[in-house]
Each structure stands twice: as structure tokens, then as C-alpha cells.
């Protein structure tokens, strides 16, 4: 059956963000990035170019890294959305976050949420990826501070800690 949303009328949609269902009211032209930041106050996901050219807005949709600036929020009903806010376990950082903090994988921090989510998706599938795989996975995330080397090292260290934990 066709689901129609008329123009110039807000829509009420149930979104599942970080495992929690929330009913949100928004204008149908809003992107997932706009709804996360403006309607749900989840400002961890960063707003960069808005045109797909930087990766700052990356989130996981059904476990897959996508750019939230180019996803219509109305098309996300019933899908699992993961953002950087869902990474920490209570007051304890996720091993990837801790590794980024320890190894200087984050400087200004603007690219960090997008890279953390992209790296998490990779490590969920491949617990021990080589440098090449990491490079490929985050080739859509621009960082203007670190020169990427610390980021690769942080992901490798995060992966090591996650494997350690899984033992």
C-alpha cells in the first residue's frame, strides 16, 4: 500500500534511536541529521557540509554507515538508528572512544562521531581488520586536524581492546 505524506503538513513518526523508540513530530522535508539534532537534541552527530562531502554526519542505519544529511527522516520509520550517543555504556566509554582519547585520535573532535560510528560498523563485522580495510572504511570521513594516522592507530587499538573484552 502506498503511504502518502502531504506537503506543508508535519508528520508524526516513530523512530528507534539507540534502541529507544520515540515519537517525533517534524516537517517531512527534514533530513535525519536535522531531526536528530533539532527535534531530538542529539547533537553528537555533527553537521558539516550537508551535501555528502565530509562524513561528519555519519550514523548507522540498520548497522550500515550512512550520511544522515542525505537521508529523509520519514524514510527511517521502523529502522534501527545508531548515533554516537549510544556508544558509551553508562558512564564508561566504549573501547573505541577510550582508544581515541588515549591515542590522540581526536583533536577538534568534529569528525570524531562520524568516524567512531563508521569504525564501529566495521569492527562489528570484522573484529581484526588490517590497516587497508580501515583506510577503505573511513575513506568517506574527512579530518582536517589529525592527518589520519592517529585515527588509524586509535581504531586498531580500539579493535584490540574489543577483542580482549570478548575473550
Amino acid at each position: 500500500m502506498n503511504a502518502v505524506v502531504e506537503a506543508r503538513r508535519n508528520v508524526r513518526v516513530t523512530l528507534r534511536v539507540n534502541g529507544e523508540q520515540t515519537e517525533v513530530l517534524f516537517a517531512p522535508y527534514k533530513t535525519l541529521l536535522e531531526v536528530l539534532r533539532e527535534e531530538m537534541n542529539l547533537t553528537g552527530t555533527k553537521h558539516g557540509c550537508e551535501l555528502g562531502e565530509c562524513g561528519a554526519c555519519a550514523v548507522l542505519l540498520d548497522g550500515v554507515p550512512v550520511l544522515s544529511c542525505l537521508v529523509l527522516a520519514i524514510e527511517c520509520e521502523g529502522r534501527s538508528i545508531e548515533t554516537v550517543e549510544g556508544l558509551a555504556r553508562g558512564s564508561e566509554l566504549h573501547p573505541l572512544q577510550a582508544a581515541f582519547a588515549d591515542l590522540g585520535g581526536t583533536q577538534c573532535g568534529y569528525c570524531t562521531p562520524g568516524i567512531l560510528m563508521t569504525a564501529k560498523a566495521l569492527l562489528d563485522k570484522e573484529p581484526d581488520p588490517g590497516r587497508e580495510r580501515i583506510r577503505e572504511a573511513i575513506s568517506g570521513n574527512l579530518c582536517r586536524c589529525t592527518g589520519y594516522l592517529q585515527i588509524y592507530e586509535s581504531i586498531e587499538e580500539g579493535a584490540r581492546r574489543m577483542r580482549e573484552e570478548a575473550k
Partner: protein
Amino acid sequence: MMRLPWFRHHAPDTLAEAARILAGEGPNAMLIAGGTDLLPNMKRRHQSPSALISLARVEGLKNISNGSGGNGEMRLGAGLTLSDVVHCAAVREKYAGLYQAAAQVATTHLRNMGTLGGNLCLDTRCNYYNQNYEWRKAIDFCMKKDGDICWVATASKRCVAVSSTDTAPALIALGAKVRLFSATGEREVTVADLYNNDGMDYLTRRPDEILTSVLLPAASGWNSSYWKLRRRGAFDFPVLGVAAAVKTASDGTVEEARIALGAVASRPFLVEKAGGLLVGKALTDDAIAEAGALVASRAKPMDNADLDIYWRKGVVSSFVGYALREIRGDDMRVTRLRIARHAL
């Protein structure tokens, strides 16, 4: 924030329903698949469709059928993401050129979102067009959107925006066809015939048609390759795409060959005579150089994309050489790494 304009949004489940809605909404409606081309364009007000018809929920658009007809053909649904295409083992094995093209589109995130159908219907690009509304207004609009002059070629009567799809030249070299579905029927056209050499009216698809699948002919005896020129190893659209497919006999004689170019005109196109030039010969260095020179003479890049146009034209014959040498079986890994910045 660059906000999207208002639109009516439809999310049909079936192809028949999608086609009926598309016909009913008329030419101001647009289809949206991955949205990775359309949404940036809508943010820049290149397109302001009255309605969007989402293909995301439409059944059957993600099917892959590999040789089920017994004739070795392969059919790929238009709704498959480029990541789906890249990870399809049969595509890598049988249609290397398509794999190499899909794997070089944009970035991993965009390939997770963007579809094969959307890639084939990608809007043409130009430095004077892919700008936000205020930028375009400031220099006065061009004829592709809101104005009546072409800033690239001011005497030109037509827009020369560049076809920038990576998969289309690869599919043209492979001799692929697409299926178009509408409320009034269905038809198949070759990928080459899907395009007009016009930056504005760049598709021969009617506004009420939905591209549903890509049909690849049997691959036995064929080898293919795709080489892309761009500034960075990720993100950037092609400023040159060279695709080749060659069928050789067991003694190495070329039986059939096709070479196609992307990003050097408003459409991707087959270089008609290049294939014929190779037939009956082995892929020797001389034959390859001859084909390279012929193909280069057909490339007419315009000064509306990244990189210097003389250089972009100057490297065409080298790129033809890379593609044909890879097909010949030369070890091109070092060159590939230098050009693509990753293994393919």
C-alpha cells in the same frame, strides 16, 4: 542549514503502484532511490519536485539473477546499492569493469546509500551549476537552471554539463541493456541509448518511466576493465572514465571489442571505430597505442569540471592503454594503486 524544499512524499510497495503514482503526479514529480544525487541537488534548488516517489520499499528492485535463463546473462535490480554490486562475487568475477567502476564511485558511505539505477540516471554536472542558489544567482543563472546563457561556452545553444556516472561507461562497454517500466508498458534499451548528448535533456527515459533492472550479456570469453581519473582517491566524480571490454579467442586474437568514455561529454558513449580497429589482431603494444590515439581524438572535455582540460584530454590514450593492458593480463597493480589509490 541548507533546507530541502517542501514536497509530497509517496512510499509505494509495488512497481505497478509506483508507476501509476508517477504517471498521475506528472512531470513535476521525481523518483528518489538512494537520494545521494537528488537531495544535494534539491538543497541547491536544482530540482524542486512537487512530489517524491520513494523506491526504497518497492519490491523486486534488489533482485539479482545470475544466469537463471541458462544463457549466461545476469540481471541486476536497479535498487541494488553500489555496495551490493561491489560485494556481489559474480559481478567481480564476470564483469570486472562494472565492479571497478562501482567500487570507485564516491565513498563507502555513499555507496551504501546510492543505487545502480540512480547512478545511471545521475544529473549531469558543471562547476557553474553544482553551486547553491545564492552563488548561482550572484553570477546570474545559467540555462540549465533558472537562466538562459551557458557560462562555459557563451555562444553555445546547448548546455554542455558533463555526464559523471561511473557505471554507465562500464556498462556500455559490457554491452548492457536497461529495462524501463511505466504504467503503459515496458521496454528495453541499450545503456548507450539511454543517453542524449545534452546537458539538460540528458536521458531518453520518459518522465513516467522507472528504470527497473540492468541486463548484462553472457560474459564467457570477455574481459573488462574501468579506469577513472579524479583528484582524490575517494569522493570525487570522474573527470575521465575509460571502460573497455574485449572478447578474445584462445590464441589471443580479438574477436570483439568495445571501448566507452565517460565524463568527456554530456553523455557516456561508445567509441564506435575503436572496437573494429582491434578485431582480428592480438592486443600488442602497437594495437593498443593505435586504439588509444583513436579514442583520445573523440574525447572533448569541457572546462567545467575539476583539473586542467588539456591534461584531461592528454591522458586519455594512456588510460585506454591501462585498460587494454589489464585486459591483456599485464600486472597493473602498481599503476592501479597510483591512479585509484586503492587496489581493485
